[in-house]
Structure formats: C-alpha cells, structure tokens
C-alpha cells in the first residue's frame, strides 16, 4: 500500500526562489526513507508541504490516499492526527513536566477536554503516557521538568509525545542535528526500532551520511529542489553522494557539510 505519493510537485516562493522543481516519488507502507541534501536543497519545504504547513504551487501530495494540496481544514486535521512529527528543536514546552508534555501528544486523538489536563486525564491515558515513556527508556524522568533534561533525553521525550498519537506515519526533520553523535545514534536507532516493530512508515531528513547509510533502507537525495538520487541503500555509492554535496556544481554556495568535511580531513592530517 502506498503511504505517501508526491507527483510533479513544484514550490515557488513569492521572492522567486524555486524550492521544489517537479518532485515525484512514492513511499510504501512501512518503508524507512532517508532524505539527504545540502542546506537549501528543498528538504524542509518538501516536509512542510506534506503536512500543509506550506502550500505547493503545483502538483499533488497524497497521504494515505488523501489529497493534501486541496484538503479542507477538517480533512487536514484527520490526516495530521495520523502523522507524527519529530523536530530538530524538539518543540516541547520547557517549563512543563515530562509527563505533561507527553500527555499533550494525545490531545488530537482525544476530543474530551478532560483528557487534556494532568489532573483530570483518565487513568488509561495516564498509563499510556508511562508506556510511551518506557518505550523511549525515560519513564524514570516522568516528573522532571523538560528544561532539566539533556538534548538527547529531550528528543526522546518528543518521540514519546509523538507515540501518544499512535501515528501511522512519522516525519522527522533533522531529528539529530542538535545532538552529539552518541545521543544522535541513540535517537536514530530508537526511531528505527519503533518503525520496525509497529510497521510505521518513516521519512527522515539528515545531514549525517553515516547515519543515513546505517539506518536508511532507501535514500532520496535532493539538490536544488530536484531529486537526484532515489535508490535502495545498498545501491548507494560515494560517487552518487558526491553529486549531492559537490560544491563544484554550485560554485556560488559554500556548503556547511563540505566545510565539515574539510575540517575533518584537516584534523586527520
């Protein structure tokens, strides 16, 4: 079954920037797709378009068969309930406890306002919060305030909040970009495990090629708003990735990743 299909998608911003040019791909239920591409390649625009935070200029996006580009508010809310998002900056409410933040994740699923407050939430929902936190191995921090946690812990709390939604589809936008390599690896392996055990479709953008090759089953590479790679991970070679990040093709831009690459080789030498 097709979980997501994007067809001939164009996005042109009012300032004339063409963020996406004729992007087409389909993702099957249960696939784990990594989206790679330098800054400004259109990854974020594509992401925001999938949940209609951004309106496409032309083309079609279908999530679970529902056309997003023309969906009304009600239809859109139904789709959003099925899609769990993970953000680079976590987007939790820092002055609240871990428990409260995770509870909020179920607000879309539960219409009764009683279930929205820690004091009045039914016991089964409270227990579900505990389960979701146990899944990310943080149940012992349930009463802590989020602003006392480390970056890696905070991202795992955000994943627990997303699990409260019981998503069929996870979109993760650079989920490890703010984390150190060890915490980043923990978060990526957690996402991979969750995806495998619940057969959830995942699309994850990354800047770390090593994580992409380790956790991705399929790699899509964007460059200048176009798809330049779309293949199973075992068919990906370094030459293909060079196309993605080679600054010779784009002399006017200095790429952050390239700089990182230079820095690494400089340290090695």
């Amino acid at each position, binding site marked *: 079954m097709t979980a997501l299909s994007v067809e001939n998608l164009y996005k042109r911003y009012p300032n004339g920037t063409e963020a996406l040019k004729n992007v087409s791909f389909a993702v099957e239920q249960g696939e784990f797709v990594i989206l790679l591409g330098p800054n400004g390649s259109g990854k974020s625009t594509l992401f925001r378009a999938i949940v209609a935070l951004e309106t496409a200029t032309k083309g079609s996006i279908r999530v679970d068969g529902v056309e997003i580009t023309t969906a009304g508010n009600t239809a859109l809310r139904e789709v959003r309930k099925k899609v769990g998002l993970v953000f680079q900056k976590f987007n939790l409410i820092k002055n609240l406890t871990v428990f409260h933040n995770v509870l909020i994740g179920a607000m*879309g699923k539960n219409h009764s306002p009683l279930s*929205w407050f820690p004091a009045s939430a039914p016991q089964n929902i409270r227990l579900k919060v505990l389960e979701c936190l146990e899944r990310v191995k943080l149940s012992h921090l349930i009463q802590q305030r989020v602003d006392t946690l480390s970056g890696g812990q905070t991202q795992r709390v955000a994943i627990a909040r997303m699990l409260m939604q019981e998503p069929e589809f996870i979109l993760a936008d650079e989920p490890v970009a703010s984390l150190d390599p060890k915490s980043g690896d923990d978060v990526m392996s957690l996402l991979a495990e969750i995806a495998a055990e619940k057969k959830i479709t995942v699309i994850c953008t990354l800047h770390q090629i090593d994580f992409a090759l380790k956790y991705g089953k399929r790699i899509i590479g964007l460059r200048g708003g176009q798809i330049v790679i779309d293949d199973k991970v075992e068919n990906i070679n370094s030459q293909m990735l060079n196309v993605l990040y080679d600054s010779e093709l784009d002399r006017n831009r200095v790429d952050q990743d390239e700089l990182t690459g230079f820095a690494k080789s400089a340290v090695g030498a």
Partner: protein
Amino acid sequence: MNNKAELNEEMLPARYKKLSPFVWLGLVVFLALFLHGMVIGELTPERMIRGIGRLNDFLHQAFPPKLDRLPNILKATLDTFEMALVGTVFGAILSLPAALLAAKNTSPHPVVYYLARFSIAFLRAVPDLVWGLIFLVIVGLGPGAGILAIIVDVISFCGRFFAERIEEIEKGSIEALRMTGVSSLGVVIGAIIPSALPSFVATTMFSLESSVRSAVVLGVVGAGGVGVELSTSMQLLRYDEAFTIILVIFAAVIGTERISSIIRKSFI
C-alpha cells in the same frame, strides 16, 4: 608622523551641534510649561518653612495613634483588600481572551488585532480614578464601583502584558501541537496557556499589588473600604485616628507585596 603638518583645526568636530527649529520650539515649550508649573505650584521657600511647622503640628496631634476604632479600621482594610482581590481575579480572567485577540500570533484577523490593541490602550488611557467616578454614577456608592474600576484597570495592564508574552512563545511548540490535529482551543489550552503561565501569574501578582493601592484611593472618592475611613478622619481633623489608618494601609500594602513576591518565585 611626517603628515602631521597636514592636520588643521577644521578637521575637529564642532563643539556644538546646530539644533533644528523644531528642537528649538520644543525647548521653548518645555521651558514655558515648566516655569508656569513652578508659578502655579507656589512652592516658595517661606511657604515650605511654614509647612514644616504645620507638619510638626500634624505629627504632634497624630501621636500616639488612636486605637479605639482599630477593629473597624481593620475590617475596612480587609474590605479594601477584598475589593482589590475580586477585581484582580475577574480582570485577569477577562484579560486572557482580550490578550489572545491582541497577540499577533493568535489573533484571528489583523482587523481584530488592531481593534483589540486599540481597546486595551483606550482602557489604559483613562485613569483608574476616573473609571471609579464613572462606575460610582452607574452602580452607586460602595465597593461594587471600586471592583468594577479595578477590573477595567487590570484588563488594561494584564491585557497588554499577556499579549506580549503570548507573542514571545516559540512558534515551534505551537506548531508541534497544531500538527497533531488539535483544534485552536486545544492549542490555547495545551500550548499557549502552559507556556505563558509563569509570566501570567507574575503579571497578575504585580497587578494585585497596584490594585490594593488603587482600592484605597478609590475608597476616598466613595467606593467603600478603608479609603472612606481615612477621608472621614482627615476631614474631621482626627489626625491620631488617621495615623492609625495610614499605618494599617502601609502594613496591608507591604504584606501584599511580600505574598506576591513569594507566589511569583514559586511559579518560575
């Protein structure tokens, strides 16, 4: 070193900047108003010196403070505090919807935003004592008028600061909740109120402190409480009794500030 000879005085900045005619006009107006203010104040040195003698008389008559009516005074002070409390609670509750309409990121429409901002600014432009006089006409003498005036005063203060706090909330945490398919009401309850609550509480507590002072003054014009007691004692020249009232008001205001600061600290 060798181009030192090329230096000349013309390269120095001017000692004074030339002022534009508007600035001159402004200075003249300011000076005129200031001098006229001094004249109508008539705070001449001899008058000040005579005043010191009268202050001595006042203090002489005020000491020792007369405690006969202390129970009545305490009761009236409690009334004043309760006026401030009720007014602040209703004011803070009503400030929340007003602030949601007056914050850029939650207002449903730019027109609504400007209307809400303008209304809150209008409430603030009219002093609380004037609101008190208006409500005295509408609902008659007594604490009711004072409470209504305080509600308006609190909305004018909290409405503005609540709105500013709402505008500071990280866009991401609001977006994250909206993207789980939650309604606008859900976003307000789940993300906006919890993120801003510490600041809302602090603003409300500041507002309570100022409301207690307002409530005393509103009493003087007839809105009940200890203000009425004070104005009566002063008019009947019972300065010893008035002094007791002033001490009690002092204690009530300081007490409110202490409690307010403790509550604010516990909500950070």
